[in-house]
């Protein structure tokens, strides 16, 4: 399967781990593969993103375009070229 190029938006709290980039272009067929590609490029980023193998920290929300990946197929959700993946800390409110 061809790796699709996706834009990953990095929140301020994680930018020091990725050379201060606001976004990164990487390839991968699924959300998990895309995040994995970022992690192999920037290992410190991965340490903060995952609680354990394949399990994101519970206060990290990942959106594929406008949808929370938990409403899709989580890390197995397929991506296509031009998609945008946003990593956003969960926040309080009401």
């Amino acid at each position: 399967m061809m790796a699709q190029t996706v834009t990953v938006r990095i929140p301020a709290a994680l930018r020091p781990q990725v050379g201060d980039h606001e976004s990164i272009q990487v390839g991968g067929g699924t959300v998990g593969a895309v995040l994995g590609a970022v992690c192999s490029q920037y290992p410190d980023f991965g340490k903060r993103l995952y609680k354990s193998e394949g399990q994101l920290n519970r206060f990290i929300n990942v959106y594929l375009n406008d949808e929370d990946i938990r409403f899709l197929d989580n890390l197995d959700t397929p991506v296509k070229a031009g998609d945008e993946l946003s990593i956003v800390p969960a926040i309080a409110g009401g």
Partner: protein
Amino acid sequence: MSFVSSLQCKECGARYPAELRTVCDHDFGPLEVAYDYERMKGKVTRASIEAGPRSLWRYRDLLPIEGEPRTGLRSGFTPLIKADRLAAHLGVHELYIKDDSANYPTLSYKDRVVSVAVSKAVELGFDTVGCASTGNLAHAVAAHAAMAGLRAFVMIPHDLEEGKMVAMGVFGPQVVRIAGNYDDVNRLCSQIADKYHWAIVNVNLRPYYTEGAKTHGFEIAEQLGWRLPRHTVLPVAGGTILPKVYKAYRELITLGLVEDNEPRMHAAQAAGCNPVVQAIEQGQSDFKPQKPNTIAKSIAIGNPADGPYVIEAVRSSGGYGASASDEEILEAVKLLARTEGIFTEPAGGTTLAAAIKLIEAGRIPRDESVCVCITGNGLKTAQVMQGRVEALPTIPARLAQFDELIESLPGFAPAGAATA
């Protein structure tokens, strides 16, 4: 000089100085204000609190501000009502309503959190405050910003109740309606906080903001004569207030200001948005997000950031949860109005409806004390009751017509009254 010792990650325990920090660097976990309770002992007493102002600032020693409060000088210290008529109706022994529908100045519990957040924003040198909101928070941010002379920028879902939009607009904030639900608004707000140097109360001021919610719990304890209700029922939206009221109770226990009666915390949600109650009922430690669909818009948060902590507080205290349908919510709004003279918004109806279910299920025994926490005012969402109150007859200004009307109304015609 406060008693604050640090900000501490609720997930990994990492400690940071108490300054501007949104989340933990290591795992994105939320940060909690930690205090030096040892140093408080003998200084923070029932007497020291009772000598304070009749506002939430009487608990200032247990709040994270360093200088003088900048807003909220009349916020908090809302009525705690012994609800005997409602108690009789429900067949319970000792029932209280903590009534934040009478909070000052914006008639919801949010005056508490915003008083602390805006005071902190001034302390940290911000000139603009903002929030993502389902209405009540935006209303409070707009009013308190006006009081403190700050600019306000509030973001809300596009489909909020008309009354709420006008009520916040009158204070002159920049209101932006987002085409999406609250969870969409919140996501955008998080990205805005990254980019603009504003104090977004529920994002980068969150550790401070959420502490204000404790004052709801402090007041319940003090107004009960320095004791805790055995059961407390609270609504769950983003999940701030329930764990914070629990924290307040435990702080008072730690300081020896109340006896530890093992208070139980119970969660209330609308059936159309109940990720937390569902997790409690299914024995899960984390929730699954939902797309909200309920008349209780102020608590329609399908992805509650503090949901895991609500589940933890409910479970570790021995409490439980219940959810209510829109129909049950509106009936409970009416019941509270007709037994206690309190008009709450659908969120309050949700809390009462859930409390009734917990009583009926035996989760709250009828002979134990219970406090139902009402967090918002019905006048802001009055239109939801349209068609649920009796018809309003119009008659000519003539006594004969009035007599005729009275004859037709059950329960009003005086026995043997002269109709001459």
